[in-house]
């Protein structure tokens, strides 16, 4: 049972504030650190991993400071975002070396266990330099798991993985979380975090924008007005039909681009409304696209609350 605590932590680089007064506590189970690129996720993970001192505030692991305290690595497994990993070594040599550096009594057996966990035994005698991106990710995982740490930190672990590898890693992390380990991973993809994490911490522009259960975050994200851009065979008739329904708050007709801009209260009823209304009125829909569904806008909405 290991808890990482981030208390009033800020980190700035020169004039740039990368992390701004963040306080959070990460306990057993899977926590997703969600935020757009450049939000400060990696900076936070580096501080949690003891590779960056906070400019202000404290980062502790079960009460012990992580900065300049190599002993904490007995309980931390780190999967960095960068791919470099001793390309001249074979996967097996690399994981064994990691086990030895941890001072494990039987480094060979530990390495074999870790390689089996990430299903990399088949390629363990090939050089890492020849690995695909997904294989590298898995060998990095093996090196982080080799000492069976109680905390696992992963920086953008799903980047560059194909769907099958992604699924396998998700299952692996789920298993680790179920064993009571503290797993923290960062991602800029909402669906990944939502599928995996029971606890979500949202970071936007260095600030801790939201924290909690994924349903709560999801509700925050969905209960806002949604804007859609629609073009159809008869925009004016469609506009009239849409505004008649309670799930639509405003409709505007843009004559230059010949599109409709529609604000909807909630996503689901609206998604059902549009095709029904169009069918009933005999209107052909050419395009229905969310105008502000980009993650950035979802996040900035969260920050604004």
């Amino acid at each position, binding site marked *: 049972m290991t808890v990482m605590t981030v208390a009033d932590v800020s980190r700035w680089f020169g004039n740039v504030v990368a992390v701004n007064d963040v306080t959070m506590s990460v306990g057993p189970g899977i926590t997703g650190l969600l935020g757009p690129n450049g939000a400060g996720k990696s900076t936070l993970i*580096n501080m949690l991993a003891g*590779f960056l001192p906070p400019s202000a505030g404290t980062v502790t692991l079960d009460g012990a400071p992580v900065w300049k305290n190599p002993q904490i690595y007995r309980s931390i497994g780190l999967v960095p975002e960068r791919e470099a990993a*001793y390309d001249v070594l074979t996967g097996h040599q690399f994981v064994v*070396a990691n086990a030895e550096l941890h001072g494990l009594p039987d480094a060979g057996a530990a390495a074999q266990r870790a390689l089996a966990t990430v299903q990399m035994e088949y390629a363990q005698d090939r050089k890492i330099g020849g690995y695909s991106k997904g294989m590298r990710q898995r060998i990095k995982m093996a090196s982080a798991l080799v000492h069976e740490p109680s905390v696992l930190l992963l920086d953008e672990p799903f980047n560059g993985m194909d769907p099958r590898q992604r699924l396998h890693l998700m299952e692996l992390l789920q298993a680790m979380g179920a064993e009571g380990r503290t797993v923290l991973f960062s991602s800029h993809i909402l669906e990944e975090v939502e599928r995996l994490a029971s606890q979500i911490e949202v970071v936007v522009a260095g600030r801790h924008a939201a924290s909690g259960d994924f349903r709560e975050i999801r509700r925050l994200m969905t209960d806002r007005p949604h804007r859609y851009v629609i073009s159809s065979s008869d925009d004016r008739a469609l506009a009239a039909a849409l505004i008649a329904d309670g799930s639509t708050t405003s409709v505007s007709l843009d004559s230059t681009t010949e599109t409709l801009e529609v604000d909807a209260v909630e996503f689901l009823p609206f998604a059902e409304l549009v095709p029904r209304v169009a069918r009933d009125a005999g209107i052909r829909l050419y395009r229905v696209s969310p105008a502000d569904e980009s993650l950035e806008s979802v996040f900035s909405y969260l920050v604004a609350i």
Partner: protein
Amino acid sequence: MLNPTIVRLTAHGLLGGRRLLVLGSLSLLIVALAVLLQVFAGVNEADAADFLQGVSFGTLLPLFGLIIGTGVIGSEIDDGSIVYVLAKPVSRAVIVRSKLAVAVVAMVLFAVVPTILAALIMAGNTPGLAMAFGAGAVVAGIVYSVIFLLLAIVTRHAVIFGLVYALGWESLVGSFVPGARELSVQQWALSIIDAVETDGFVTAHVDLGVAIVLSVVVIGLFTWLAGRRLAAMTLSTEE
């Protein structure tokens, strides 16, 4: 105390790629030059001493110190793989000492041994000369390893700064400017050579006591500093 795993990883990294080829061919070049000089020019002891002083101590040792000293840690820092060594419960001082040990062994193999061989080829009748140059080369090799290892930890531009230092300071200033000689590794080494060989082929500009004290201070202080800096190493995130 050394960590055998770090020694192994470092040796792998240092000699795994093209670096081995560069180092090996340069050290062979020194030996080949000595053979050519001996065969075609018929050098005497004084010529041999001049040659070794200029080529081996003026260029080979500082340059190899740069390649090897930064090579044992610089590339790992550059590509970020150092994180796998640092994210372990291993004392930072042990990491530095292990890497330093590899650097020193490589310096002996690629710079000290060729220097001794060249001395034996050109001045085989005076084995004392080879011994003296060997002793000087060992000291210079260790000091350079420490200096460049620290430099690689302190700055990402270790090779540039190292080149300016090795070629600018050690080769030019340290050889010719009297006041600066006191702070030149090359001159410390020459002082040791002068003390070991008794025939007066090498003239030292730095007092032996000063050379020994400064060498020991640099080795001790810089090794300690390297450990301290490694303990406070941050990994860049936004690139």
